[in-house]
């Protein structure tokens, strides 16, 4: 009896594993046209992506230095091999739902030769290629209310692709104030 039960359990596991592998396999259609490569990361329960070209690197944000008299969405600054990079907290900036259970903190540094900033992320997922047939038009109902400002596309598997150009041109994230001045 016992053995039968164990056998049944093993078979169930086998089936589940095969199903998971099938699902995990990347779409293989060679006929599909690739749009662009993105780096995927996770903030709370949502996956976000940014085009590889604008990505500098991902580093540990454990040595984040908090800056006094700054808005709450400025998580702090880090020293990245001699460069000072400001790290933004998207949760605070767009009032995303926060479970508050994440302990590991990473910073995804984006930028070009003129602009550079970091985004506070919870997990780095990896690199992936986004195909053109995956891309859906940004739908306000599916995305967070505040995000459209920076939103570029959303894929079918609910990957939110951020628009680097919009981030770069957003004036509201530039803090230019004297100490004591009222901040937004």
């Amino acid at each position: 009896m016992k053995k039968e039960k164990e056998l049944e359990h093993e078979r169930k596991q086998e089936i589940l594993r095969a199903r998971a592998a099938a699902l995990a396999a990347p779409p293989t259609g060679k006929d599909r046209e690739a749009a662009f490569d993105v780096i995927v990361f996770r903030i709370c329960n949502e996956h976000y992506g940014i085009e590889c070209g604008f990505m500098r690197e991902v580093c540990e944000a454990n040595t984040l230095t908090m800056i006094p008299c700054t808005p709450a969405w400025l998580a702090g600054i880090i020293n990245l091999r001699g460069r000072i990079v400001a790290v933004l907290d998207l949760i605070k900036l767009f009032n995303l739902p926060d479970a508050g259970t994440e302990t590991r903190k990473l910073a995804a540094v984006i930028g070009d030769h003129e602009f550079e900033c970091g985004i506070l992320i919870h997990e780095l997922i990896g690199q992936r290629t986004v195909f053109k047939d995956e891309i859906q038009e940004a739908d306000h109902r599916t995305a967070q209310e505040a995000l459209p400002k920076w939103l570029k596309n959303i894929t079918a598997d609910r990957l939110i692709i951020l628009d680097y150009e919009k981030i770069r041109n957003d004036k509201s994230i530039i803090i230019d104030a004297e100490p004591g001045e009222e901040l937004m």
Partner: protein
Amino acid sequence: MFRFITGSINRKLVLLVMGVTLIPLAMTTFLGIWMAQDALLKQLADGLDGTRSDRTNAVIDHLQSALRDSEFAASQRRVVGLFSEPNFDSSNTDAALKILSSKGEHCGFIIYSTEKNAPVYTLGINKDEVIKAFPNSKLEEFCKKVIKDDKPKFLDYIDYPPAKSLAMFAGCPIVHNGKTAGVLLLLVNLSHMDNIMLDPTGLGKTGESFIIGDDGYMRTSCRKRKLENIPSIMKIKVKDKMLDDVFKAEKAQSGFMVNSHDAEALVAYGKVDLKKISNDLNWAVLAEIETHEIKAPVDAIIKNIIIASLVLGLIACLLGFLVARSVSKPLLALTSKVVKLANGDLTVEIENVKRDDEIGVLIESFNRMLFSLREQTSKIQEGTSELATAIVEISAAVSELAANSTETATAITEISTTMEEVKQTTHVAADKAAHVSETANRVSSISEDGNKATREAINGMSNIKEEMMALAENIVKLSGQTQSIGEIILTVNDLAEQSNLLAVNAAIEAAKAGEFGKGFAVVAQEIKSLAEQSKASTRQVSGILNEIQQATSSAVMATERGSKAVEAGVHLSESAGEAINTLAESISESADATSQISASGKQQIIGIDQLAVALDSIRTATDQSLKGVQQLEYASVSMKDLAAKLKSLTEQFKTN
């Protein structure tokens, strides 16, 4: 008379109040009068003595001046000249002597000549009569005496016709040329002395003062007789007793005596002390007041006090009567009721008097007593009838008792039969007890073996305990090691994470490099998959490790439980040993008990024999009690009679 007083509270109380009022009054009065009289008499005696002493001094003065003047005159040249000069003019002598008698202190002078043995000169008195009366007279005798003693002298009262009355002389020798030539005789003024003594000052109505000589005759007038013109000088003599007392006394004194008027009087007396000047006169001065005059004020006081006492007595009588009536009135009322009560009439009623004193309380208490007496008597009457009923019941009970006693005698016979059976049973019980005793001994040796086995079990258990302890320690060590493996796994996981990060960063860099970086991107992808694999492995390892940790902790728990169980086993085996011990002890106790049982069985047999004897005596006692019950029956009959008597007695009291 005595019965008359003791028969009534009224009379007693009146008498008592009178006595209480009058006895102290009488005592104080008596004491007061006695002391007042004493003081009064002393005061009077002192006053009298003062008067007497004053007058004595005045008399002494008068006599002294007479003697002094006679001496002075006798030494006068104008007097001596009568003898020295033959033709001496006697008018000179007149002049000299008149000066001396000018104050009226002296009545006259006579000069006697020794040579002529006759008076040769007179002043203030008829010379012829003097000369005529001189020969063989007392005066002549006196003159010779003066010459003989050659010093001034007094001649006591003599009846002297030339002076037309009594006369008294002071004589002094006249010295001429160293010889006594004659005598100067001074006629003492007697009326002056009389006046001194007749002075009524300090002597009251009946008081008198006078001089007496040692012959008992008065030398000055008696005041009372003087008023009645009865001559008293040298006529009236005091009583002999008084005379004796006066002249025997050394000092001035006072006392009660019978005076010349035959009346009792307080007399102060003392001799006239003329020793310094002359020894011729032995006189005494007396001052007296008659007793009835002295006692008049004391008598008046006594009279007043007696009147006051009578009035007070009357008031006391009245008060006593009032008090007595207020006390006795309710008492008399009470008495009549109490007399009725004594005759057995309990129906009497006494009116309550509103009084706060003891009589009020008495009457109230009497009423209460009457009430309770009435109640008690009726209760006694009830009680008597109850008693009669009870006695009837008692006699019934007594007959029952007699029947019961008979039954008891029968029962006793039955008991003795039963007792024989008990005796048999006791024999059997003794045999059984001996058997039990043997069995107990056997069991005792078995329990000894059991004891030994238990001790061995305890030793084994402690060995197991030590082994368990060692096992527990090992498991704890194992647990610590799995902990450190967990730490290592964490580190590996961390490394995998960082490799992943690096792989992604490398991929980014490769992407930046474009077509040239494609090969590098493949490498980066490989590194990333490696990192993921190692991550998965560590996850598996940590899962296994978790299981190991759970297993060790359950092993620890099991060891703990095991050691506890071993301890409990030790305890159990110890208590088993104790139980076996206790069992052995109780078995030996029961062996003892069985031997005691067999012994007591024997005693029981003896006891039952004694019981048989006792039953015999009980039987005798039952017979006696039967007799007693008969006596009880007689007694109940006489009690019935007694109850009847009691009833007739209580019926004498009327309660309604």
